């Protein structure tokens, strides 16, 4: 490796940054996040008595720390365009793995003077890639977790409430998926070849239909005595749902708003597929516990329909453990996505998501640690935040 000799002018005059300066500059770069965090926290503290479980979260120090960490990354993802210093895909100069604080060689599209956290083996800015990676992770992980929850709830409610053969069949299917080693499943499902066979699209067609069914049944069971309202809500659900469905599952949205790359669809479906059975088991367990309560019996004597009892009597009373598990599961999904990236499955090589960045950086780990360590710490802090948040929520929801 040769030392960089700056070709001309300004790079000569600019010194590489010290660590203190690096942290200072990064803090400055994150200013939209700080503003948003302060606003969120001031408002939340001000009105915390009126905000239900969310407000109670601010009574627990663990919950506050977790919430702050999570919101830090959420705002980072939101304001990624304002925070990052370079295009995350741009290759800046020809020096491999520039150190944190190194000066960027003069070039055409240089709008910032330093590599804040160094560069990777293609001289791409590690800091900008980390920021952009947050956006990738925070779009896919919560979305996949939400889908997994909707699927798990829609199947878990009848399995627990009705029981019998339906329960036996669904539980067998769930245990089947759970007995599959996750990595093996990923290696079989998330390959480029499998896209041509149409299996991911078929899986998506089944899995994505379930959320639409969930909301349609939700409104139908509540408003079936009031056809006007029912038609409105179920109609909106079906129109919006099927519109998104055509785009997400088949990439055939007539207006082109909804859409997912085949690669991403593959990853998304696999992650939902792996997570849904666990949610199913949790929901089923809670429902079996709740269905022996008096208010369920009261509903049954009033002549309420099974789906009304499941969705409007049981589900709201099961929300505590489900919200806690939702937070934990977003963290777990983040880890899973990272694992996929780590094995280079289902992501494009230049993708800035944290898992594949760690994978790319680990080859030279013992010589130049920064390309791998930065996304590793980012991922760890996000998951830690989600775990602490879940812990705080559990603590507070157990209090009443």
């Amino acid at each position, binding site marked *: 490796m040769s030392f960089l000799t700056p070709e001309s002018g300004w790079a000569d005059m600019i010194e590489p940054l010290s660590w203190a300066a690096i942290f200072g500059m990064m803090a400055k770069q994150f200013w939209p996040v700080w503003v948003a965090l302060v606003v969120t926290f001031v408002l939340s503290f001000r009105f915390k008595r009126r905000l239900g479980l969310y407000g109670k979260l601010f009574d627990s120090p663990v919950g506050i720390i977790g919430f702050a960490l999570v919101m830090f990354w959420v705002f980072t993802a939101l304001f990624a365009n304002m925070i990052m210093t370079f295009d995350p895909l741009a290759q800046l100069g020809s020096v491999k793995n520039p150190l944190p604080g190194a000066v960027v060689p003069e070039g055409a599209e240089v709008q910032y003077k330093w590599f804040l956290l160094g560069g990777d083996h293609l001289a791409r800015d590690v800091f900008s890639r980390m920021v952009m990676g947050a956006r990738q992770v925070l779009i896919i992980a919560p979305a996949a977790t939400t889908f997994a929850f909707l699927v798990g709830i829609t199947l878990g409610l009848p399995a627990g409430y009705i029981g019998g053969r339906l329960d036996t069949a669904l539980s067998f299917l769930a245990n089947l998926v759970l007995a599959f*080693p996750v990595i*093996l499943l990923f290696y079989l499902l998330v390959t480029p070849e499998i896209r041509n*066979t149409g299996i991911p699209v078929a899986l998506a067609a089944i899995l994505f239909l379930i959320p639409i069914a969930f909301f349609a049944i939700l409104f139908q069971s509540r408003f079936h005595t009031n056809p006007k309202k029912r038609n409105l809500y179920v109609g909106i659900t079906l129109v919006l749902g099927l519109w998104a469905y055509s785009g997400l599952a088949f990439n055939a949205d007539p207006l082109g708003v909804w859409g997912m790359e085949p690669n991403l669809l593959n990853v998304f479906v696999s992650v939902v597929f792996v997570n849904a059975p666990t949610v199913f088991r949790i929901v089923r367990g809670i429902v079996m516990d709740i269905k022996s309560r008096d208010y369920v019996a009261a509903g049954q004597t009033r002549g309420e329909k099974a789906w009304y009892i499941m969705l409007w009597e049981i589900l709201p009373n099961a929300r505590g453990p489900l919200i806690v598990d939702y937070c934990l599961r977003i963290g777990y999904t983040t880890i899973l996505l*990272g694992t996929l990236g780590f094995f280079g499955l289902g992501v494009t090589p230049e993708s800035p998501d944290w*898992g594949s960045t760690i994978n790319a950086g*680990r080859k030279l780990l*013992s010589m130049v640690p920064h390309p791998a360590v930065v996304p590793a710490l980012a991922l760890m802090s996000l998951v*830690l935040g989600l775990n602490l948040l879940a812990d705080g929520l559990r603590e507070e929801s157990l209090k009443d």
Partner: protein
Amino acid sequence: MLAFVIRRLGVMLVTALVLTFVVFFLTNLPPNLEKLARSEGSVRMTDAAVVSWLDEHGHSGSVFFRYAEWLGAAPGWVITDEKGVTRGRCIGQRDDPALAPKYCGIFQGNWGISTVFKKTVLFSLGKSMAATGWLMLAVMLVMVPVALVIGVLAGMREGSRTDRVLSTFSIATSATPEYVSGVILVVLLASPATGLSPVLAEWGWLSGKTLFMGTATSAMDNITFWNFGLPVATIALYGVGYIARMTRASMTEVMTQQYIRTARLKGVGFRQVVLRHALRNAMIAPFTVIMLQFPYLLNGVVIVETLFNYKGFGWMLVTAAGNNDIEMLLGASVVAVIFVLVTQLISDIGYVFLNPRIRLG
């Protein structure tokens, strides 16, 4: 009890059959077979040549029938080509076709031949599983005692400072997946440029360049603390948090029981109460958790073996999957599925032995 075990074994068998069929189906999808034909035959085959190659090597026909062949429940394929040479699934290179057995699947002990390792699947599996066995054993020996001690210490006085510190530690470790902790551990302990090693080397305390070794390849022949420490620590760290939290939950619950208060009021010391009265009842839940942790351990093993280049089961799985080694993948999945199912069974049975209040019908 016996009826329960038999029924569970029956369900297990069905599950294993379904899962291996799924793996068989996914590995034998047309694109995978085409890739196999091109890698085994020649890269520049025409599409027609690919089809005829697949025909000649028994890869055509119904997937159910081929699955049955692979299991050994259906007779293996036999083809006599135009030169009069008879080949077949059960006929070796130099064997006499007339003497070859009719059935040869995994029931008969024929797991096929790995296209990557050029050895029989059984041989490669055995070798890699032995290597992974040592890794798992070491992980268990480190992880379980550490997790139980942390959990018991944190749970015996809920809300104390010890509890806060240890709980935070366990949350932090369960937020650190293997590919993160592995990277951080290597940077801190096994890099000649960063972390602890340059400092120690400067003081002259190191004979080599780094404190720990960044790869575990040498541990295949000779396991030492310095080449095995980091992989074991990496896997153990992720599991410790979860088991410790479960132990803590179970311990705090036991500590609020009436009989603990009775023992305290009787004048038994705190140490005695924890060790003699609380500990045994607090260990029931963690046992199940530890057994159910094995499948996740498998996940960690795959990541760590890739990261540290340790040629065990996980490394082999990744290599086989990356190179479309169908027979090897099938063999590995059989092992993995049975492993998961057996740990589930043991966890259920062990639960009954530990908790006499539970009866299995």
